[in-house]
């Protein structure tokens, strides 16, 4: 077995130090006053069976986004020799993050009372009683823990799109484990941790950064980590000269569709309730997604003369990403415009920007999730409607919200870029990041997993 415990320990040590340093550093620059919590906060501590039903369902939906959704979305886009290796990444990440989450990172993200440092309760879920509620939400803590776990799963799985076709499976597992602990958990804590009354605990939440369902925590975070990793790993052999066309867009369209359907759990589930806020979140999600798919398609149609399957599904995912932070705060009209903009900007992100700088973000983890996340986070500050989420945006006369959003975006970008970079460099030094050129030529399926699609 190629993962050696020693290597893992060697890697964790310094990286952990970095987190702590980084946390403290940020503490000084961002000691802002507490603001309203992002998530709705009904006061009653009674179990709501309807809300619980919806959260159980949402958990299933968000798990479905990663397996098989994202697995198929990415798997269809690589060359045939790498399809199983790509699917395997999403599946294995699901397993690894599940264990890391219950052992450590759930508690890091959602317990503790320090605005900068993650908590350390709930190690191996100790003390989580069967009938405890996840206050202020009227659902059992077990359900809330599971729902949030599915977010912790999909985030590193998104990163894999950036380094597709060339990363060692063993190194990928180590990277994802450490990244979950040192990057995902702290950022989730900063943005989403609340006390039992729903008051923000993390410094970004206190600052008033709006992120309903994970624009910063999930998408910007994964997108930037993806960009860093494709820079550190280098380009695929043969890029950009050889034909690296997606081998089976049937898989990708199926995956994109399941992502779309599952995203209802992601966004409407983030209301942690089955009420009008959840309904409105679902509606704006649908509208922004359709709008972004159409604007990407239209742009491609005009520029490239043909509307493509890869284009329309990429646009849909761009819309889903961009509306994620906004989904509890904007109204349908805002969502429509937000979606149209996101489709166009991400089209540029996945075509213009990438070729301008020449990095090989293979499946556009940064071009779609990073860029889309940034666009969405900022536009949330523009389109936020007080009657929906309790906070006004620029269009309702509150330009400060855009600034707050920008602070959230920049903090996340800086933190994830630095820590991801260090992690990758350490792992590279210890065990190597990339498969050998022969293995890459042969394809991950046979080289790493000894299997092939016949």
């Amino acid at each position, binding site marked *: 077995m190629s993962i050696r415990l020693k290597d893992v320990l060697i890697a964790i040590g310094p990286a952990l130090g970095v987190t702590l340093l980084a946390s403290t550093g940020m503490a000084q620059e961002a000691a802002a006053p507490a603001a309203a919590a992002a998530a709705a906060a009904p006061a009653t501590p009674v179990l709501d069976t309807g809300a619980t039903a919806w959260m159980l369902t949402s958990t299933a939906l968000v798990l479905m986004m990663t397996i098989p959704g994202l697995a198929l979305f990415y798997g269809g886009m690589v060359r045939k020799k790498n399809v199983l290796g790509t699917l395997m990444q999403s599946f294995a990440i699901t397993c690894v993050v599940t264990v890391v989450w219950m052992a450590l990172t759930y508690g890091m993200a959602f317990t503790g009372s320090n605005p900068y440092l993650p908590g350390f309760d709930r190690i191996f879920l100790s003390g989580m009683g069967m009938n405890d509620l996840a206050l202020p939400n009227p659902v059992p803590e077990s359900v809330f823990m599971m729902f949030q776990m599915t977010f912790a799963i999909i985030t590193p799985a998104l990163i894999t799109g950036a380094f597709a076709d060339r990363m060692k499976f063993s190194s990928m597992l180590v990277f994802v484990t450490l990244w979950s602990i040192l990057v995902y958990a702290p950022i989730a804590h900063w943005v989403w941790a609340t006390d039992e009354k729903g008051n923000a605990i993390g410094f970004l939440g206190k600052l008033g950064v709006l992120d309903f369902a994970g624009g910063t925590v999930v998408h910007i975070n994964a997108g930037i980590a993806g960009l860093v990793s494709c820079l550190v790993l280098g380009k695929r052999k043969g890029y950009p000269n050889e034909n690296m066309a997606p081998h089976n867009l049937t898989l990708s369209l199926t995956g994109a569709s399941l992502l779309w359907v599952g995203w209802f759990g992601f966004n409407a589930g983030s209301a942690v309730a089955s009420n009008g806020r959840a309904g409105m979140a679902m509606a704006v999600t649908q509208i922004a997604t359709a709008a972004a798919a159409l604007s990407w398609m239209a742009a491609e149609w005009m520029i490239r003369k043909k509307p493509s399957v*890869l284009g329309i599904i990429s646009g849909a995912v761009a819309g889903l990403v961009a509306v994620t932070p906004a989904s509890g705060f904007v109204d349908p009209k805002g969502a429509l415009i937000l979606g149209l903009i996101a489709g166009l900007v991400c089209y540029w992100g*996945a075509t213009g920007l990438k070729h301008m700088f020449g990095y090989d973000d293979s499946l556009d983890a940064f*071009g779609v999730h990073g860029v889309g996340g940034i666009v969405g986070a900022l536009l949330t500050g523009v389109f936020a409607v007080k009657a929906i989420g309790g906070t006004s945006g620029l269009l309702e006369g509150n330009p400060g919200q855009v600034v707050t959003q920008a602070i959230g975006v920049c903090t996340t970008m800086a933190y994830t870029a630095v820590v991801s970079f260090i992690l990758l460099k350490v792992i590279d030094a210890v065990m190597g990041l990339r498969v050998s050129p022969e293995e890459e030529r042969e394809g991950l399926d046979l080289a790493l997993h000894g299997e092939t699609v016949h």
Partner: protein
Amino acid sequence: MKLIMAIIKPFKLDEVREALMPLGVQGLTVSEVKGFGRQKGQTEIYRGAEYVVNFLPKVKIEVAVNDDIADRVIETIQTAARTGKIGDGKIFVMEIQQAFRIRTGESNADAL
């Protein structure tokens, strides 16, 4: 005996096969191939990256025939496979020294 190898457009396969039956051709073997020639392939564009698909799908027919009908077979293929547009394909003729039917062990003319 001759081995007649024809590379044609895929949608012409059924027409060619049917045209050959009356000549007494009792069998043939077909492969899916990719052809490169004067006819230019499509450009596929994926997220801004262009891939020129140099190779076009073609079908290769291999049919072994006796010398006496070889010319008629060639002509028939030419007529049936022709669209008059670029990329219609080629026919190559080679000599077969021996032929066998596996089931019976019959050889040469009897084997076809």
